[in-house]
């Protein structure tokens, strides 16, 4: 092959060995979406072939050479109706089929395992409930529904896993969610697909799908010592949240035990479900959401706590199942790393000034 330049030769080798035409299907939704995709490809091919065949055959049959005088035709209501109704019908099938898949992709099952993802220029940070952090990678197990709760710290990003056929925009100021169930172990592309500035094309990473056993091993080897809720607990203490949210009878703020998922009455009238988005808003824009019976005295924590911090706090609140837990937190100023398994804050003496005598 001495007469072929090495560059071209390399290129040919690459072409023959590494020429992808269709992405791997590695999630439960992928084959469902591909079925619709191929249905559409089929319809398009039939439509295109019909148009091309007609154009070519009319061009031959009715070229000026073969057909010197045109026959004037006004039109045909029957034909117009045909090519209005048939495409409309096909498009409706695609619409309904597409909507079914869309609702499936964006309606997570109740038992899904939740992973938080924060996008920022130009990296993805994933926060697992067990406290594992990852940057530009995401480890997930097969056979388990995984819900991602996404938010951006700055501009719009978009979390795209082509092999799973899912994608969701990460937006500043609000949570978005998407879920999937991985089926095939392997390493897949993770892209940011919403243009986000200078290093947009470097905001990429790997999605690593592991078998459940491997996933457990990975979880064990990547733990930072504290769970996400424990990090939140520590933050809760250091921000002195417990000064008001301490579940005492004379507390200035509402108790947060079991608040997650409950229906709250607001002082503005009306009620709201305390979900992730509400809890986040209540931390960052508290004056907008005053719970009935409390004075609007909570300061905003905008700028004092990062999106990851908010996530940790939300995760902590999700796990607050009794007033006892809150009061324990009140007494917590330092959580010793590695205290996992013990009652949080159990060994820490009360030293901060918020504790009332």
């Amino acid at each position, binding site marked *: 092959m001495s007469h072929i330049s090495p560059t071209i030769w390399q290129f040919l080798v690459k072409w023959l060995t*590494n020429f992808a035409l269709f992405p791997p299907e590695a999630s439960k939704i992928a084959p469902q*979406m591909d079925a619709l995709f191929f249905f559409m490809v089929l319809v*398009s091919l039939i439509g295109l072939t019909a148009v091309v065949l007609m154009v070519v055959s009319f*061009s031959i049959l009715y070229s000026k050479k073969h057909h*010197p005088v045109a026959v004037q035709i006004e039109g045909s209501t029957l034909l117009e109706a045909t090519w209005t109704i048939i495409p409309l019908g096909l*498009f409706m099938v695609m619409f309904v089929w597409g909507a079914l898949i869309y609702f*499936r992709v964006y309606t997570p099952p109740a038992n899904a395992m939740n992973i938080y993802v924060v996008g920022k220029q130009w990296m993805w940070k994933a926060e697992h409930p067990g406290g594992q952090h990852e940057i530009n990678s995401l480890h997930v197990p097969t056979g388990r529904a995984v819900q991602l709760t996404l938010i951006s710290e700055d501009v719009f990003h978009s979390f795209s896993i082509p092999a799973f056929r899912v994608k969701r925009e990460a937006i500043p*100021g609000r949570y978005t969610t998407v879920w999937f169930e991985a089926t095939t172990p392997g390493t897949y592309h993770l892209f940011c697909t919403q243009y986000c500035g200078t290093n947009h*094309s470097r905001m990429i990473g790997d999605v690593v799908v592991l078998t459940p056993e491997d996933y457990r091993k990975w979880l064990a080897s990547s733990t930072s010592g504290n769970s996400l809720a424990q990090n939140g607990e520590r933050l809760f203490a250091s921000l002195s949240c417990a000064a008001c949210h301490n579940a005492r009878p004379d507390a200035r703020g509402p108790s947060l035990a079991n608040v997650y998922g409950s229906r709250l009455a607001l002082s503005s009238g009306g009620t709201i479900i305390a979900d992730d988005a509400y809890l986040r808003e209540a931390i960052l824009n508290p004056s907008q959401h005053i719970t009935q019976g409390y004075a609007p005295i909570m300061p905003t924590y905008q700028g004092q706590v990062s999106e990851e911090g908010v996530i940790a706090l939300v995760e902590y609140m999700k796990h607050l199942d009794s007033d006892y837990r809150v009061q324990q937190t009140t007494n917590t100023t330092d959580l010793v790393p590695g205290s996992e398994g013990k009652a949080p804050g159990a060994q820490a003496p009360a030293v901060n000034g918020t504790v009332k005598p």
Partner: protein
Amino acid sequence: MNTNNNTIVDIPDQATARIPQPNFMTKENGLLSWLLTGDHKRIAILYLISITFFFFIGGALAGLIRLELLTPQADLMATDTYNKVFTMHGIIMIFLFLVPSVPATLGNFLIPMMLGAKDLAMPKINLFSWYLYMAGGILALYAMITGGVDTGWTFTTPLSTHYVNTNVITTGFAIFVAGFSSIFTGLNFIVTIHKMRAPGMTWFRLPLFVWAHYAASLLMVLGTPVLAIAIVLVMLERTIGIGVFDPVKGGDPLLFQHLFWFYSHPAVYIMILPGMGVINEVISTFSRKRVFGYTAVAFSSVAIAIFGFFVWAHHMFIMGISNYAVLVFSLLTMMVAVPSAIKIFNWTFTLYKGSITFETPMLYAFGFMGLFTIGGMTGVFLGASGTDIHLTETYFIVAHFHFVMVGGMLMAFLAGIHFWWPKITGRMYPEKISQLAAIVTFIGFNLTFFPQFILGVLGMPRRYASYPPEFQVLNVFSTAGATILGVGYLLPVLYLLWSLKYGAIAGNNPWQATGLEWQTQSPPLTENFVVTPIMDHEAYDYEWLESQKAKEVASAG
């Protein structure tokens, strides 16, 4: 009548033929007579020169993009530079080329002539809109030269308001100004079509070119102000921080998307409808037949314009808008696909029992039909909410809108330029080389953009300066195709310029077309017609044309 079986071209005997004098080009001389003209035909030519200029700047930027993507690494330019290049490519091509392309050149030139009018209703406003366009264009170039802008042509907030440090305000203002040019053009067309039709020219005798422009003008007048508002808000956000789009201040960054796409989705119909208008005229003329289902085609233009306003949120399916909003917008998107399908089938059946010849405009029109069908069908892939999740924001969407905008609109523009070139200049373009250019364009186009569909299905995101190595082969194809496409676009510039001096003299009606614009001299008089024409027949009435000819022969004999 000529007896050649392969062509309908009927040009006068070259030995005796002369370009008729006076005509609108030679009536007055000097630069000032052009810069201060109120003549819609001269303004059309000013536009033609300026949009061609901007097209080649945008095209050069496209060339840089394709060169960068030849290799997986970002090695030709820094990622920041790449971001600026694709941003300017988008802004120039959309706001300075595609939006004004057919309406401001061919529309400007032909609408008064097709209506049998002397000029547009407001000639001075028409000239003013060209100056606005030029002001916008020069400002955009200034912004590009003094550092560029890297927001993407979509100006997504909060990236554009808080995070980039480039000429967003200058560029935004350029688009704001150019937008008014398009509002005025649209307004002028609407008034002219309502008020200046010749006696007998009823709405259903209008050429479909005029119907398409009427629909597009409605979109320009109603949609562009919303873009202007969105851009002003971005500028205010950057300068004084009003916070409408800033979540920290209680604003909503998604609001920008709503405002922006409320214009920018109808904008694609502003771009494509006039192109569809051109295709009607070309297909009818070269198959010697009335357009099949005239009323259906006319109303489908209006239907596209109306539905086109209610589909904007299909650009936001994955952005966390409510699932039920997605349902509604997906449904409406399917609705807007139907009139486009109707048009394709009507054009196809116009060929049925026609008497077809294959001059260059017809070749471009065939190219349009094929590529627009692919572009339209792939739009349905994106309109169906489920598949949109996977395909949006990838090269699939890039390929889709290039099939519609370049494969559709640019093909239509070139079809129109070749078709009316004899009317505009009085001279024929060289046929053989232009047929070659049409074929080269078609091949180059497919090679450039078809691989991008596959890249998109594989998941390659748009606006990436570097990409995983397994995508390289398809990108190499695409870049190779772009080179061929470049040749296909350069050729017409060369031979059209050549034909200005050396082209055969065309006579009034070289294609034997039925439109009123063909029933007067080429190039036309400044007043278009010697006497106001009276429309006593339907559009595309080839029998009327024959009888006119017979009369002429009789009176001459």
